[in-house]
């Protein structure tokens, strides 16, 4: 079945960055530069308004670059189902601005009466799987497209989980047809906090499911009971994350990759330089080398 999403530009298997207000003009001015992002991500909640400056800039950027809508407010893991007000706003925004990809999280953020500005963990049991599958199905039906769900960063694990997280993800994707937004930094954070094995985790993720990859930095607090990793997206991507990413891309082939930075956002050229590092990893793959590229797409043409 052809959907609306089929007619929208796909995210290219290159590096992108988050669209930040302080970079709006720089981004549009720099599109012809040799080193630039190939797509951008927004948190659509920042654009849930009927007009104004931010919508104006978003529409201009969306005319020039593919845009990934990375939602944080659907609360897919809530027992009461997704946040319908948020879903309505998301659908309205997608009607107005083309989204090359739409995603949210394997987490919950609201109850019937309260919204928590955080991504809280769910247990990996049948009841959660059924609830998440129903919510993802509801969202995909409403938006008339496949969405991606992001693996969470966790500080807590539940007793009595039926499955490890990769197995839960695989079951969710099989049940709904959704894909995975693979956040490698989140795996590193969870490894520090609850002791998962990041390599084993990645080995268990089928690349066919992965529609997008996030790379980010995190903070580490030292406590008497050991380190606590905080997924603050407030620093450059760490070297462990880079190593895991490079290995995964070497096996999986190129996948659209975002450099995710939401706090202490650096200058535009710093972000773009970090994205270029990801681009070099993507362009070193056999699939990239085999692909017949036009002069404007050729990886070497984008090297500084």
């Amino acid at each position: 079945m052809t959907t609306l999403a089929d007619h929208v530009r796909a995210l290219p298997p290159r590096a992108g960055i988050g669209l930040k207000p302080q970079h709006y003009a720089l981004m549009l001015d720099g599109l012809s530069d040799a080193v630039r992002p190939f797509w951008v991500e927004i948190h659509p909640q920042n654009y849930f308004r009927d007009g104004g400056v931010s919508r104006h800039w978003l529409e201009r950027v969306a005319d020039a670059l593919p845009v990934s809508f990375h939602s944080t407010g659907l609360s897919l893991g809530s027992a009461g189902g997704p946040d319908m007000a948020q879903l309505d706003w998301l659908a309205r925004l997608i009607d107005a601005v083309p989204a090359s990809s739409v995603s949210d999280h394997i987490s919950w953020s609201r109850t019937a009466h309260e919204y928590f500005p955080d991504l809280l963990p769910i247990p990996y049991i049948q009841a959660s799987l059924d609830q998440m599958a129903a919510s993802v199905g509801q969202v995909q039906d409403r938006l008339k497209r496949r969405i991606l769900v992001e693996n969470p960063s966790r500080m807590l694990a539940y007793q009595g989980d039926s499955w490890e997280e990769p197995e839960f993800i695989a079951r969710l994707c099989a049940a709904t047809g959704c894909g995975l937004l693979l956040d490698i930094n989140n795996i590193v954070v969870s490894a520090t906090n609850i002791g998962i094995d990041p390599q084993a985790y990645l080995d268990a993720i089928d690349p066919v499911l992965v529609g997008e990859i996030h790379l980010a930095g995190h903070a580490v607090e030292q406590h008497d009971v050991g380190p606590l990793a905080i997924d603050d997206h407030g620093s450059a991507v760490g070297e462990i994350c880079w190593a895991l990413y490079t290995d995964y891309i070497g096996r999986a082939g190129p996948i659209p990759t975002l450099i995710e930075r939401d706090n202490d956002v650096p200058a535009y050229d710093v972000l773009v330089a970090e994205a270029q590092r990801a681009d070099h990893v993507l362009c070193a793959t056999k699939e990239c080398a085999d692909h017949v590229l036009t002069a404007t797409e050729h990886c070497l043409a984008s090297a500084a």
Partner: protein
Amino acid sequence: MALPGALFAGDARRILLAMAAHANTISHGRLVALEDSFTATRRALGEAAFNQLTRAYIEAGLGLDGQLNDIGHAFPDWLEAQGQGAALVAIARFDLAFLRAHHCRDAAALTLSDLPDDADALMALPLARHPAASAHALTPILLDAIEQPDWSGKAAILITRPDVAVRLFPLGVAAHDAWGVLAEPVTFAELCANLGVTHDDAAIIPAIIELVRAGALQLGTQP
């Protein structure tokens, strides 16, 4: 503090540490959203007093049901109920109106070129407030909070958004009164007649032009 049964895996101290970290993220997110929403109020109060009030507002359970960009919708009313004084409440209402102007739907503002040359057509022209516009009495404390000392002596401050950016304009007495008449849509003639009760004829048209130039009006619906 007792942990909830056998819900979480791992060492109890690490579980408490993680729960505290989540609680801190949630609290921080809410407080920062209020700081970003009420910048003039924060400036007027000072950081310590503002933080005390916003913490109390959150602890009262207000604004927690919606998303962060709407967390402050009840803050001015709550300040009033707490007896914080009319001047401070007015600044908080100003901040909320500024935020709402940002979020408001786009709408074409009436411009000078939209005003008909024909006198009869002009008098019959229906006028209404632009959906993003609002006016706020200009008190010394508000003047300080918005850092516009040159506007002292003006009657009010107008918030408008005729295109993409939110703008502020000082309003004279007659223009402020014209804004008051436009609480309900009226024709140009009705507006002039109302203003004529309290203002000299010479002040009426400039007052209306002041509102038009600020982008505060839109074409009303024809009766």
